[in-house]
């Protein structure tokens, strides 16, 4: 697919461009600051944009803000945000809309997982960093409906929230796909999420549930 990369670190940007090219993607534009991003996207009409959260001009959350603006200017354009550390103010909320991913930067070193996440996001799915999901499912939150989940159901929910398909979850947990499907139905029921056959929508509902059930902040 055709990809735009926005990252101010030259080393990282070049590394990522090389990686993406080697696996057969085309990097149509690579920019080093958030201000250049809208023009680059408008010109090259990519299938996916990879954006670093912290970029010039202000080196705070320019990348995340740019992602929000791109989402308004190009609804449905898949985007993957990369961050040096977990922060959620501008990013995680977008995951619930689909076609959006949020990963820690060093996940690119797990090449297969990373490429898998890219593919999911480009197809309108989601990818949420395991560390973020871990925080969302933390023990301190056991006083909510989450406490009614079994350990196995929590494992399934965690992987679903990371963005994996039923098949992906099944492989990772060494379960049959039907078993995963059964767990999934139980989870949705316990969390009072309306049943739907569309996997994407179920994932988004689960992520939304986790986000809304977050304690203060």
């Amino acid at each position, binding site marked *: 697919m055709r990809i735009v990369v926005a990252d101010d670190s030259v080393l990282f940007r070049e590394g990522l461009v090389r990686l993406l090219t080697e696996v057969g993607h085309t990097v149509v534009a690579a920019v080093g600051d958030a201000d250049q991003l809208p023009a680059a996207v408008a010109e090259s009409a990519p299938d996916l944009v990879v954006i670093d959260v*912290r970029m010039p001009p202000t*080196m705070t959350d320019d990348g995340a803000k740019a992602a929000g603006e791109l989402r308004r200017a190009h609804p449905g354009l898949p985007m993957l945000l990369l961050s040096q550390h977990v922060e*959620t103010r501008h990013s995680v909320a977008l995951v619930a809309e689909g076609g959006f991913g949020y990963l820690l930067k060093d996940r690119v070193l797990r090449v297969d997982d990373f490429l898998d996440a890219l593919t999911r996001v480009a197809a309108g799915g989601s990818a949420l960093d395991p560390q973020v999901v871990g925080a969302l499912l933390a023990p301190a939150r056991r006083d909510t409906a989450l406490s009614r989940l079994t350990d196995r159901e929590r494992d399934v929910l965690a992987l679903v929230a990371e963005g994996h398909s039923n098949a992906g979850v099944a492989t990772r947990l060494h379960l049959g796909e039907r078993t995963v499907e059964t767990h999934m139905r139980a989870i949705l029921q316990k969390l009072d999420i309306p049943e739907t056959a569309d996997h994407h929508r179920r994932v988004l509902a689960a992520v939304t549930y986790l986000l809304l059930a977050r*304690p*203060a*902040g």
Partner: protein
Amino acid sequence: MGETLAWLLTTLVSAGVFAAVVFGLGAAVGASGAVGGGGAAFAVALLVLPLHRRVQAAVGRVVDRERYVHAARIQQFVRDVRDGTAAPEDVETVLRDTLDDPGLTLWLKLPGSTADGYVDPSGTAVAAPPDGGRIPLRSGPAEVGLVVLGRTSARRQRRARELVALAALPIEVSRLRLELRAALEDARTSRARLVQAATEERRRLERDLHDGAQQQIVAAGMRLRSVQRRLESGSPEHRELDAAVEALEASIAELRSLAHGLRPSRLDDGLPAALASLVADSPVPVRLSVADVPLPEVLATTLYFVVAEAYANALKHAAAGELTVEVAHTGDALTVLVADDGVGGAHGPMTSVRDRVTSVGGEFAIESPDGVGTTVKAVIPHADRGGR
């Protein structure tokens, strides 16, 4: 005139005593004039000074009543200051009232000030004093201040000079208290500056770690992965590169936790998110309530570290069944409270946190009665000006 009269009276009384002793001794023992004269001189010498003082006071009371009353007022004020019932800084008012000179002003000189740098008794710097009616105040060779009269005449000058001399103690105490206050204020602001600088430095280091070292390690790992792609999967070299990249990932995790210790990066999401993530792994339930107000970096990190340390202590020592963490913004202050229902009996002084709190002008307290639990509380002044 009173002075002259007093000496005259003293002389007369002394002469009388001398005569009485000479005469009395001569009559009693029939001694020679030499013995009587010597004894009389001795008696007079013993008596003359105390006698003079009393005579002078008595004369002053009668002949120069006003001066006597003024001096008494100042002396009473000095006693009150000594007893702690009057503030030494009132000396200016007392001098004004006593001398009936509302325009009288006291100018104090603090150490290290310039030749013309005076302050008023409240410590406010004032413009150069007028030339007329000055009474310099000295402590040893150094000039420590001035009293400037509003109404000047030779008589007033003389009177004021006497009274100012009597009031030397409260004047000097006021000056020393000002010095102390200025020194404390200096220490406080320089500490606040240091904390501010340290906070900025930590933030800069945190960014350097994330944006510099960490990115470079990731980039190096990507190169290794790129090389690895050209190798046959399952070959020893392939596995070797897997191990190398895993080692890099471990370094990145380490850097991330190092950066977290410098400054928790979740603070980028605001204090509520940072504290929520702090207590996320708590083995006991935590009731968390954090006001979401925009805060300057130095306050956000201060509040974060207060909670982090109190929380860690509670988990470690308190054997608590439940924790409460509250950050509230009321009017012009932030209140942070970390309370547990554990065993109480304080867990040490928390010196570093206390220092952090006081350095931003706040107050810090631990209450930890045995068996009732521990409450750590800090109140930090912060006026919400709105906006971000």
